[in-house]
C-alpha cells in the first residue's frame, strides 16, 4: 500500500473520530472536572497559604497546576485511545476495517492523529481556563509557550503509550487496567521519590529504613525516568524553569523518540498479533 493511500486513510479515520469526540459530551465533562479540581485543590490552597503567611515564595507557580491539568487530560485521551482500539477489536469491526484500504500503519496513525487533534481542544480550553484564573487571582504564569509545546510532546508520549498497550492486549479491560495501573505507578513512584527527597531539604532526619527506601527509589529512578512519559515532562519543565534551552530541546526530542518508538512497536504488535478478536 502506497504512503499516499495510507495518509489518506489515516486522515479520514482521524477526522471521522475527531468529529465524534467533538460532538460527544465526554471530553467537555472531563475537562470541567479536571479544571474544577485544580481550582479547588491548587489555586484555592495557594491563595489561602499567601493569606495565612502574608509573604511566601512559590517555585514555578504556573507549572504545577498546568502539569496536573494537562497530565490528567492526556491520561484521559490515552484511555480513550486504548478503549477505542480494544473495543474495535472486541467487536470485530477492526477486522472488517482491515479488509478495506487500511493497514496497521495507517490505523495506528489515524488513532494517534485523532487523539492529538482532541488534545488541541484540550489545549484551547486549558489556555482559556488558566489565563482567566491566573489573571483574576494575579497568581500569574510564565513560560506559557514553552509549557504548551512541552504539553504537546507529553500528551503525544502518553497517547502512543496507550495505543501500544491496547495493541498488545486483546481485551479492553486489560488494556485500560494496564494503562491506568502503569501510569498510576509512574505517578506514585515519582511522587514518593520527590517527597522523600524533599524531606531532606526540610531537614527531616529519616530512619535507616526510609533512607534505604529513598536510595532504592533514587537508583530505580534512573530506569523509570526512561519509561515513564511523566518523567519526560518533568525533565522538560525543569529545563524550562532553569532557562536551559539545550536540555529543554533534548527533552522534546526524547519525547518525540518515545512516541515514534511506541507507535512503531504498536504497528509491529498489530502485524504480529493480527486484528482478529
Amino acid at each position: 500500500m502506497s504512503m499516499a493511500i495510507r495518509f489518506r486513510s489515516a486522515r479520514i479515520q482521524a477526522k471521522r473520530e475527531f468529529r465524534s469526540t467533538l460532538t460527544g459530551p465526554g471530553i467537555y465533562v472531563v475537562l470541567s472536572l479536571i479544571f474544577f479540581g485544580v481550582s479547588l485543590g491548587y489555586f484555592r490552597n495557594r491563595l489561602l497559604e499567601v493569606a495565612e503567611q502574608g509573604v511566601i515564595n512559590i517555585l514555578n507557580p504556573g507549572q504545577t497546576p498546568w502539569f496536573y491539568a494537562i497530565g490528567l487530560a492526556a491520561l484521559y485521551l490515552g484511555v480513550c485511545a486504548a478503549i477505542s482500539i480494544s473495543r474495535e477489536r472486541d467487536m470485530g469491526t477492526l477486522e472488517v476495517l482491515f479488509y478495506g484500504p487500511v493497514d496497521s500503519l495507517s490505523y495506528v496513525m489515524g488513532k494517534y492523529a485523532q487523539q492529538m487533534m482532541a488534545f488541541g481542544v484540550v489545549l484551547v480550553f486549558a489556555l482559556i481556563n488558566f489565563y482567566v484564573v491566573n489573571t483574576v487571582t494575579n497568581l500569574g504564569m510564565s513560560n506559557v509557550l514553552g509549557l504548551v509545546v512541552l504539553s504537546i510532546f507529553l500528551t503525544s508520549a502518553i497517547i502512543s503509550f496507550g495505543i501500544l498497550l491496547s495493541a498488545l492486549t486483546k481485551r479492553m479491560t486489560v488494556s485500560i487496567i494496564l494503562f491506568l495501573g502503569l501510569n498510576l505507578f509512574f505517578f506514585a513512584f515519582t511522587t514518593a521519590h520527590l517527597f522523600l527527597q524533599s524531606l531532606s531539604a526540610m531537614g527531616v532526619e529519616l530512619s535507616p529504613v526510609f533512607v534505604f527506601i529513598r536510595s532504592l527509589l533514587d537508583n530505580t529512578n534512573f530506569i523509570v525516568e526512561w519509561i515513564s512519559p511523566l518523567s519526560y515532562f518533568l525533565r522538560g519543565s525543569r529545563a524550562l524553569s532553569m532557562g536551559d534551552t539545550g536540555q529543554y530541546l533534548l527533552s522534546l526530542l526524547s519525547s518525540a523518540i518515545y512516541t515514534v518508538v511506541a507507535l512503531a512497536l504498536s504497528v509491529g504488535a498489530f502485524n504480529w498479533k493480527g486484528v482478529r478478536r
Partner: protein
Amino acid sequence: MVKRLAAAILAVMLFVVPTALAQSPLTPDEMAAWDEERFEQLSSQGDPVKEEQLVYSVTPWSGPTIGRGTIAVKNQDTIYLMANRTNLMNARITDVYYWPITKEYMANWNEKNITVEGSLRIRQGNEIVATLEPETYVYYYRDTSSGLAEVVLGEEGVRLYEEYDAAMNEYWDISRAYYEAQMEHYSVLDAILRQVQETNEYVAEDEVPKSPRQPVPPSGYVYAPRTAFVVNLPAGRYQIEMVDPDGEVIPGTTKNLIVFEPRRLGVAYEVRPEATWTKYWYTHDPAEVLYLEGRRVFYLLPYGTEEYNVYQYNKSQNLHQPLYGEGLKSSWGWVPTNVIELDVKLQVLRDGEVVQEVPFKPYYVQQTAGFALGYIIHEYDQDNPIMYNRSPSFYGYKLDLEVPSGSYEIRLVDAEGNVLPGSAREIRSIRRDPGVYRTMYLVPLIPFVLGVAVYIRRRRLRPRAGTLPAA
C-alpha cells in the same frame, strides 16, 4: 496474555530490584563492618568499641560560615570536595568509634591525635596532579556578631592573628585601666553623695565627674594558626595518598577524591516579613515568585549561592555519617556562598522601568512596652537613645510594596550598574475577594456548558422515529 504480561513485569522487577540493591547505601564491606560494630556494641552496651585508625580529618569549604568538619574513616574510600574552593585536610591517627545515637563515626581527638607526617599526593590515574605540603591557616571572623568567617592562608593569616592578639592585649590593658578608673569614679561619687547627705546642698551637674568610657573589644576574632593541606582543585576524579619523606606511599592513606562543581550560580534572599521578623526564610531560585497579600513590608538580605548535587554536597560535609545523603544522587540544592557586598543596590522595576532604588541599611527591633507581645522595626541610628550602645538587629533592603495588578521585579545592581546574575525575582500580590473565588470555580464550567450545548444540538439534529424519508 495476562500470564505473559505478569512474566514480563516479573522479569523487569528481577532486573530492576537487583540493580537498585546493587547500589544500596552500604557496600558489602561496609555492611560487614556495620554488623561487626553492632555486635561489639551489643556486648559493650553504652561504651562503644574504639579502634585506632589512620583517618583524614577534612574541613571542607562550607560557605560564609565555618563547618564543623568531617572525617574519612578507613572503610570510606571516597572523599568529596567542592571545586575551586579552599578545603583543608590532614591525615591523623586517632581512635574511631561508631556512635549509634547519632549514627555517625566519631574520633576521640582529645585522647589521641597524632599527625601523620608527610606530603599529600594527588593523582589522576598515573599522572601526579600535585604534591602538597602542610600550610598555615587561620579562621578569621571579620565581625563576630555576623558569624561569618573565612579561611586566611600563610603569612597573611599569621599577620591577622598577631594583629588580633595585639589588639586583644591592648583591650585587656585598657579594660584593666577602665575598671580601676571606674572604681575611682565610684569612690568620688560616694564622697559627693555623703557630702550632699551631710550638707543638704545639691552639687551642680557639671561638678559631678563623668564616668569613664567603657572600652569596646575588637569586633573580629582570629583563631590561632594551625597547619593543614590546602586542597583547591578543579572538578574531576582524583586519587589521594600520603607519601613519607622517602617518597613511599604510607599504607592506608589511598582514597578516591571526587571534586565537584555547581550546576548554577545565583543570588538567594533571606526574606524577613515585618510581621514575623524572626521567622525568616530563603528564596534561592530565580524561577521563584514572591507573593504578597495586600500591602506588605519585608526585608531582603542577599547571599551569593551555588546549586550543587545534594548527594555530593552532603558527603563533602558529613562523610562521618554513612547514611547521610544516601538516595539523593538525583537531587540538587542551593548552598549560600557569600554575603553580597554592601555597595550593591536593590532596584524595583515595573514594566521594565526602575521605580525605586533601595539602599542596604541596618535595622533595630524594639520590643513594645507592656506585657503583650509586639515590636517596632526602626532604621538603626546609634545616636537614638532607644538604640544607644546596642547593635543592629539585622541588615537588609526594606521593601514596602503593594501590587494591585500585574507584577514588580526586583534585582541587584552593582556600583557600575551591572545586574547581578540570578538576582531577579518577580513579586505579585494575590487577589482574594469573593468575586475571585466565584470566577475561579465558574470558569472551569465553560467546557461543561459547551458540552451540554453540543449534546442538545446533536439530539435536535438526530432524526426522530417516523421522520425518516421513505426509501
